[in-house]
């Protein structure tokens, strides 16, 4: 990345390059800016292409808050995504540690099984998992939203890969001192693996926060809906009575937390996905 020697120059010329890059930036950013600004406009001015209006205000947000339990949905989403992320990081690092640093029978077949399960598309397990939730009477509970995502083979692989680079001497020294494997993991390996934990946490939190198909299937009670689910139902269903401004406000509220996180952790978001090639 650093110390870049001259690369073959694009035939566009410098102005052309900046022009293309700038146009790209407008194309990617404008829709979100438009959404956020329009949610502050009165209904009459919303469809205008312009971002600014002299009548900006929070009236749409006030109405959304009155109409749908959006704070409850926000709370649900935070609880679900935080729990899923914590579980995936803890369980994933446990499994990854066992695969990377412990000798036990079946560790190779286990690795093969994990790789295979990552290829199984979600369409196959969707319906039986839903039926399982019905049988367990877990529909309309947090359990249905959390348990299917609480462990991921993907996280085991990321942690295993990272833990392989932790020196064995360090772990053996702790063993000689009589340290148990769980304590070695939490006291020695975890503090050394912040980058891997950040990668797994960001990818998991993001995909959990944005998940909408599964909540639509297992949650029917308004009180338990996640934010994306509630916004989907609100924006698609007739709840808003064609009030575009309210729908835009709801969509903005859904985008806001993840965009805020992205603004502060931008580098980590991009690196997480660039190194794993996954959107979570």
């Amino acid at each position, binding site marked *: 990345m650093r110390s*870049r020697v*001259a*690369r*073959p120059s*694009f*035939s566009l010329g410098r102005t052309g*390059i900046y022009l293309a*890059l700038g146009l790209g*930036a407008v194309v*990617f950013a404008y*829709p*979100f800016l438009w959404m956020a600004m329009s949610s502050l406009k009165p209904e009459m001015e919303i*469809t205008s292409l312009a971002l600014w209006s002299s009548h900006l205000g929070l009236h749409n947000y006030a109405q959304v808050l009155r109409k749908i339990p959006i704070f409850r949905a926000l709370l649900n989403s935070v609880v679900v995504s935080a729990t899923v992320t914590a579980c995936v990081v803890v*369980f994933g690092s*446990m*499994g990854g*540690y*066992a695969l990377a640093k*412990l*000798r036990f*029978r079946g560790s190779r077949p286990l690795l093969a099984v994990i790789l295979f*399960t990552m*290829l*199984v*598309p*979600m*369409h*196959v*397990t*969707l*319906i*039986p*998992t839903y*039926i399982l939730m019905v049988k367990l009477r877990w529909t309309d509970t947090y359990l249905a939203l959390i*348990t299917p995502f*609480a*462990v991921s083979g993907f996280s*085991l692989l990321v942690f295993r890969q990272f833990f392989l680079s932790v020196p*064995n001497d360090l772990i*053996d020294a702790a*063993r000689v001192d009589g340290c148990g*494997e*769980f304590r070695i*993991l939490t006291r020695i390996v975890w503090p050394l693996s912040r980058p891997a934990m950040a990668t797994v946490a960001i990818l998991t939190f993001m995909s959990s926060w*944005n998940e909408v*198909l599964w909540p639509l299937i297992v949650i029917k009670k308004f009180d338990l809906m996640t934010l*994306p689910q509630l916004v*989907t139902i609100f*924006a698609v269903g007739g709840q808003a009575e064609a009030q*575009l401004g309210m729908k*835009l406000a709801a*969509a903005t509220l*859904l*985008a806001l937390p*993840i965009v805020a996180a992205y603004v502060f952790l*931008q580098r980590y*978001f*991009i690196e997480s996905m660039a190194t794993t090639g*996954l*959107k979570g």
Partner: protein
Amino acid sequence: MRGLRKRNPRGQARAASWMILPYALHFLVFLAYPLAFTFVLVFHRWDVFTPMEWVGLANIARLVRDEWFLRAIWNTLVFVVIHIPLQLILALFFALLLNEKIRGRTFFRATYFLPVVVSGVVVSFVWLQIYSYESGLLNQLLALLGLPKLPWLTSRALAMPSIAIMATWKNVGLYIVLFLAGLQSIPSYLYEVADLDGASGWQKFRWITFPMLNPTVVLVIVLSTIGGFSLFIEPYMMTDGGPENSTLSAVLYIYRQAFDFYRMGYAATLGFAFALMVFAVVLIQRRVSEGEAA
């Protein structure tokens, strides 16, 4: 060191089994069981409320003659065939630009990446406003340029391409970043040697950059194939499969069979068949790319 590691192999094995336990339980409950159950469902009719009924191969016989499913697969293919090349070209284009010596690389990269992190629900909803016929942003822009309005989501011919363009806009940032990483891993001495030989910019791209990027291209194609075939939330939110079912995707069709009509057995059969197809497509892609590499 080996001796030390072997000090307490039994203790290690016991610790390992505890550490693997969460994954093992999760695997049994949420993967092995559902897969086995799907296989059972394929041979049954079941509406969730009444007991299961054995129907033998009736679901499969029905699937073979299901014109709607064919239609849904065709629509999904249309989407994938527009989406993947468009995505590859745009991602490569922007990655090449960003790889130049420019100011503000971090800003541009972060901006292009923004749609990747935002929920598909938000993106679908905003693009619904962009594509709207009467007052959509795109048609307003066309009007400013003195061009006629286009029925982006309301005509059979344009609806699926419109969704494919939107999906490209949403995901291309990820692939830009992947290509950029690929470009920066190309050793610069290759270009220096080419410069000594007097190669032109295009020749360097054709004979150094492009071949060296091959692994990234394969990765991008495989990832966007899997992503493309699971197309659901965009048509679900934006067109509800219309107009005239032109945006009914395979996953949307399966979802409707299961959760609108409660045909669990048939939906499981569809899911199984579709997963096999996607699996086959990815395998073929890998074969082809390995064949090219060899």
